[in-house]
């Protein structure tokens, strides 16, 4: 049996509040039992900008994250404040390589307003960011969307709906998570 690295790298893409990254880091250590390290990258975002749409291509960011993947990384999570889109969708909160290594999230639309402004009366932004980070990393561990509206893996239509779910897994997803994680962490030979 080979024991694989268990570090999740959190990559600051552009100007992101340090407190948000710290919360994500602590949350990952708590929920996944994994060590999290925060690093910074200034090369990825410029490559992913679509000038016409004034948005960043999440597919390209995932590819670039793979390019900078440290040797001891189990997963890598990009975090940005800029608006993301995928080739088919007008915008995305985040995107993950399903069952793969990398994911990216953006706080832009999580602020509640389509132009990235914080809506009055919204729950703390950091709470939404934390849920989105766990959700996308869940996908990298092979978890699909969950029917339980309280589970962090539930797909919620709109940020307001996402506020009702918790920042942790339902028992079924947790069990799946542990199973997938064991497969990811320990390579049987």
């Amino acid at each position, binding site marked *: 049996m080979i024991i694989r690295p268990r570090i999740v790298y959190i990559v600051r893409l552009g100007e992101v509040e340090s407190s948000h990254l710290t919360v994500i880091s602590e949350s990952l250590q708590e929920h996944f039992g994994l060590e999290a390290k925060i690093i910074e990258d200034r090369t990825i975002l410029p490559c992913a900008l679509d000038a016409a749409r004034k948005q960043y291509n999440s*597919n390209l960011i995932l590819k670039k994250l793979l390019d900078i993947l440290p040797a001891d990384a189990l997963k890598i999570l990009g975090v940005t404040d800029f608006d993301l*889109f*995928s*080739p*088919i*969708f*007008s*915008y*995305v909160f985040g995107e993950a390589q*399903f069952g793969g290594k990398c994911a990216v999230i953006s706080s832009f639309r999580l602020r509640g307003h389509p132009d990235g402004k914080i809506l009055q009366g919204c729950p703390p932004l950091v709470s939404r960011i934390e849920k989105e980070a766990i959700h996308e990393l869940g*996908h990298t561990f092979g978890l*699909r*969307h969950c*029917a339980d509206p309280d589970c962090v893996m539930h*797909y919620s*239509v*709109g940020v307001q709906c996402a506020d009702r779910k918790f920042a942790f897994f339902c028992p079924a997803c947790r069990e799946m998570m542990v199973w997938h994680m064991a497969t990811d962490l320990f390579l049987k030979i």
Partner: protein
Amino acid sequence: MTEDAKILVVDDEPIVRLSLTNWLQEENYQARAVGDGAGAIAAIQEENWDIVLLDLKMPGMDGLEVLRKVKEIAPHTVVIMMTAYASVPSSVQAMKEGAYDYIIKPLDVEELTLMLNKIVEHQHLVTENILLRKRLTDRYTYGDIIGKSSAMQGIFELIDSVADTNATVLITGETGTGKELVARAVHTNSSRRYSPFIAVSCGALPDTLLESELFGYEKGAFTGADRTKKGRFELAHGGTLFLDEIGDISVKTQIKLLRVLQERNFQRLGGTDLVDVDVRLIAATNRDLAKAVEENAFRSDLYYRLNVVNIQLPPLRGRKDDIPLLITHFMEKFNVEFNKKFDRVEQAALDQMMSYPWPGNVRELENVVERAIVIDQGPELKLRNLPFCNIEQPAQGEPEALEDVERLHITKMLERHDWNVAKTARILNIDRTTLHKKIKKFGLERQ
């Protein structure tokens, strides 16, 4: 339709096909993508799709043309048009041609999610509605049994009067006449309806296996009995046990069965404790049990215990008045299953079906209608699609013996369903065990 609804993506852009299919699969949908109109039509002809996400502007055959074809082939399939241009006239045209809605590219993930959820929910309600309507009591139906002939009306009355008693029922009739359906109707109209209905096909199991299936066994009763297992009698406690092909059981099992009927208790194999059961027994056979009793092949005391109430099902050739009604019923059933729109029968086909002797009874009629619907687009069920349309002048090499026809049909169905025995058995409307027996009997092997 559940969350794993089947969605076909039709778009000429590879990135859209790849990304959208991946996203749909992550959303628990079954998704596939094709790059042009011809591919879409082939996919629609090949299998059923719940939803088609169709690009409006494509080189060659455009979205509107594909939409028309899809609606022609599979009218129940929901089509959502995708367009990179907010072209109102073409979108309105698409809606007129039967599109459910349109969505502008790049897609709004929330809008698409809500739209798909709404369609899935709606189709779920439609399916439920169809099923509920089917279950409504109709004067020509009883549960899943259909017939307006006086013979069948008499059977319905008999089921009514016997259902809510505890009397043992013996159902007799040729193969394919619907003996299990009658047994289920008796159960569902009795006060035992909320308890289990357990069916055992006695003919499909060897003697020793049948005993352990019926009565269960204790741990260590025989090699491999590593735990105590409940038998069908125990599983049916409070409900109904249906013993099909009762005429095929050995004399030894007949004695054990008789004892349970008399004492209402039994011992598991290898056990000493008596297990009490409250079970209503319904048995069925296509054999002449009275004759078997005369020939000492079946115990008379068991025969009389089983034959408290006898329901004799007529062969289909004895109730030809029901054939048009049954054809309509099966057309409706397979229209839904195969997404077709058959609504009438060619007169010549009906004449042929009315004069055919139906040795396989209703099950054979069902198979014939299914085949005719599978291989044609409708809306008329044609004579040329009936397997026996040229019965008087069989084509060269075409099998004439019923057994040969059966072997060929089973082989074809197995091939069609990739040798998935459970699925094929369902399509053939026979038990898996029966299918296994037939595979063995005909010496069929996967090529």
